[in-house]
């Protein structure tokens, strides 16, 4: 088919439709047209993604795990055997890796007293958006604006929930703003993402009102949000790697390396009910990665400035669905 008038008409129609959709979405993101489209397409494409991910995940993990490659390409039989053995080994290490992630997740949630729902990442956002899709949805009790953590720290927040899937806005997205508190002193600040990074380790941008508190190696935890939405308190966020020295700015700025690896997300947990008590800094990893004041150790260091500004969220404990279980301290996270 060559370029005819009909083709151009087709192009014009497609362009108009796309522009109309953009305009509608730009004007009002929750308009009925957009929500209808998303609701119609979400289950279909989400289900397809689940299916594809269930098949392709092991393959991807295999290629990710089997990095070593022998150069001896002499005997085909030996290579076949090697491949087979490596596949078995990869399966074993795969389970181990998953198990390790899950265990770390359980440890983190146990220390913090969160009740988490384990889920795994099935799809990643296209282009510049730092979003992922998890294989847990409304049927699993997921609601929008819930905190998502992994074994290392804060991942993001749930922004959209489908039937069996949910979409998570990562903390590295430029739209994401996370209220934080510096580890020893409790200064309040916020962390924004910087989008995709060329290095793969997406650094976050930290802004703190009290700029004197910024030191390299200081760790951050999430501060409590109102009614613990979208972020529950006490989740480790990252560690300061460099302090930006701009004198004229109102806020002190620093770059934060997040604890979670946003490019290697696999097993994550969605905090379905917040802790009864603010875990403060108890969830932070014990050894700080950079040499820093040794008082970072954990929870007890409440000397000096107290909870600056924010009231402790334990005072305004949210209505958890089953407080009895959550209050049971180190209750294991609920698995499906």
């Amino acid at each position: 088919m060559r370029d005819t008038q009909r083709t151009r008409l087709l192009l014009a129609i497609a362009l108009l439709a796309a522009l109309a959709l953009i305009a509608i979405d730009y004007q009002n993101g929750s308009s009925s047209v957009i929500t209808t489209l998303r609701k119609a397409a979400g289950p279909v494409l989400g289900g397809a993604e689940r299916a594809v991910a269930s098949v392709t995940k092991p393959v991807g993990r295999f290629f990710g795990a089997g990095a070593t490659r022998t150069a001896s390409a002499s005997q085909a039989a030996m290579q076949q055997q090697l491949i087979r053995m490596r596949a078995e080994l990869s399966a074993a290490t795969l389970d181990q890796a998953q198990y390790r992630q899950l265990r770390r997740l359980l440890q983190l949630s146990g220390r913090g007293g969160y009740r988490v729902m384990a889920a795994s990442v099935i799809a990643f956002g296209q282009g510049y958006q730092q979003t992922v899709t998890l294989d847990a949805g409304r049927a699993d009790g997921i609601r929008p604006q819930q905190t998502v953590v992994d074994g290392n720290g804060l991942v993001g927040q749930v922004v959209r929930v489908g039937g069996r899937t949910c979409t998570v806005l990562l903390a590295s997205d430029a739209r994401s703003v996370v209220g934080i508190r510096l580890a020893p002193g409790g200064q309040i600040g916020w962390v924004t993402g910087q989008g995709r990074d060329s290095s793969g380790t997406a650094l976050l941008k930290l802004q703190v009102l009290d700029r004197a508190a910024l030191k390299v190696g200081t760790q951050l935890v999430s501060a409590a949000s109102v009614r613990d939405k979208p972020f529950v308190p006490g989740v480790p966020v990252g560690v300061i790697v460099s302090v930006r020295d701009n004198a004229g700015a109102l806020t002190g700025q620093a770059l934060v390396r997040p604890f979670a690896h946003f490019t290697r997300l696999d097993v994550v947990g969605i905090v379905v009910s917040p802790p009864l008590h603010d875990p403060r800094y108890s969830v932070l990893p014990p050894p700080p990665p950079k040499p820093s004041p040794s008082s970072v150790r954990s929870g007890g260091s409440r000397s000096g400035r107290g909870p600056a500004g924010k009231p402790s969220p334990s005072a305004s404990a949210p209505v958890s669905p089953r407080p009895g279980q959550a209050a049971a301290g180190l209750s294991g996270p609920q698995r499906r």
Partner: protein
Amino acid sequence: MGAEATRAGIAGGEITGGEMKRKLAAVIALTAVVLVQLTIVNGLALPGGGTPDLVLLCVIALGMAGGPAVGVIAGFCAGLALDLAPPASQLVGQYALVLCLVGYGAGRLRFTLRQSALLALAAAAGMAALGEAMAAGLALILDTPDVSWASAARVLPPSVLLDIALSPLTLFLSVRLAVALGMTVSPLDDSLVLETGGSAAPATVAALTGEAGMARVNGARIGGMPRGGQRRAAVGDSLAAATGRWLVGDVAEAVPAIGAIGWLAPPARSRRARRRQARLTAMLTGASPRKGAFWVGRRPPGLLPIAPLVRPSADGLARLRPGGAVAGSAVAVPRPGQTGRAWPGRAIHLGLADEQGKRARSGSRRARVTWLAAAASGRGGPDRFAANGVLGRDVPRIAFGTGGLPGAGRAAGRPVPRIAFGTGGLPGAGRAARPVPRIAFGTGALPGAGRAARPVPRIAFGSASPGSAARAGLAPPAAAPEFSAPGPLGSSYRGIDQFGTGYHGGGTARSGRSRRQPRFARSTSGHQPSRSRHPKTARMSAGRGVFRRLPWMRRAGDRSAVWRIGSRRMSGLR
């Protein structure tokens, strides 16, 4: 796609199977690519931080394989799927906008496929870079906070590089898939020859003589009616790919005339060369888009007409052809290493087409109908087609299609130049009592016809002057077609193309030769109304379609200022 489907297609006169399969394959490929992109590719932590956009590449490849309309539809659907699939958080329609534009652009760039592989790859890479840049630019324009100049500057270069690195793979896969599924060719479309980037020269002599590597291509798919018999040489495809024509797997060295188009052809540097290539491709596929084009040479065996079989009426045969095993046929140049082998005769298809531009659509279709009808009636049905040109039993033919196709809307009484070649025991050649000037040519009982134990192809117009064969530079002079056309007819042949067997040019029978000159915007003859807005002005072309009305779409060929000043209208104001 077997022979049964083919026969069904012939009998039904429809092209449904290939079309459906192509659409289905496109849908499946797009769905799979979208899912793979979202589940795997976007999660890869590649060096540089970029991720290849497989969806973009797939849309580009589909557009280049299928044309602008396919590109627009595929791009819009894939973009909408990307906008709506769960992890998406951008504005709905962002990717749809970008991808449908990219698909359209890739479809417009499809002509690169028939010129050279490098050009096609460069076009695909350029469209990929353009698509990435458009996606980032649209996000920046829309002021979505997830894209900043800094992140775009960081991520765009590695992504573009990855896309460019992957674009040959996707282009290759899509073109091969499209070829394997059989792309339809309508004379109004770009021909299949152009679409697949391949020549229409399929399974030629080499394939049937056992040298699969030389042969056989996608030609079996031409006409939307793949023939099962021709598809069996899958080995030929792999060998063909191994010989370097990897993008389309097209090998057509054995057919020099075919080599004038497709991948083999050198890029047409001049307008004349472009026109000639277009004429060649059009005639190879049965179309006749331009007035006066005709083609002398063998019909490619893979070229099957789409139109259903129609028995010709008694006087309904438009193209006259000598029926016997004689009159003219061109002989292919033997490939190196083929000396001594008896070469089967191949038919000449000599068409003179003269059709009004407005009726090009119906006229060309009609031409194919009559062509097939004549072939069917003269040679015992379509089953013989497979043997054409390869088995040696077939008849050298000359088909002179003049413009005066029956029923083409021409006034009945208008004298149409017509040439009857040979004797033809052509059924229904319309010999009787038609008030048409006619030239009878000597048939194959030419004096050297028996030289090679089979009729030497020869075209003798009136008298034979053997020296004219040297023009073609054919290797075996004994078997060279001789063109000798003194008199008015001879002066009309403009030349032989450099490939030997193809002979093309304008004929005397073409009535509209003067129309090949730059057209005039309005008729300048006496019946021009005095109040015409447009004085005599040379225009090469006018805008087409809906864009014709837009004033800024006027091209440089419009009226010049000089004419405007001197025009009648301005003088009236003075």
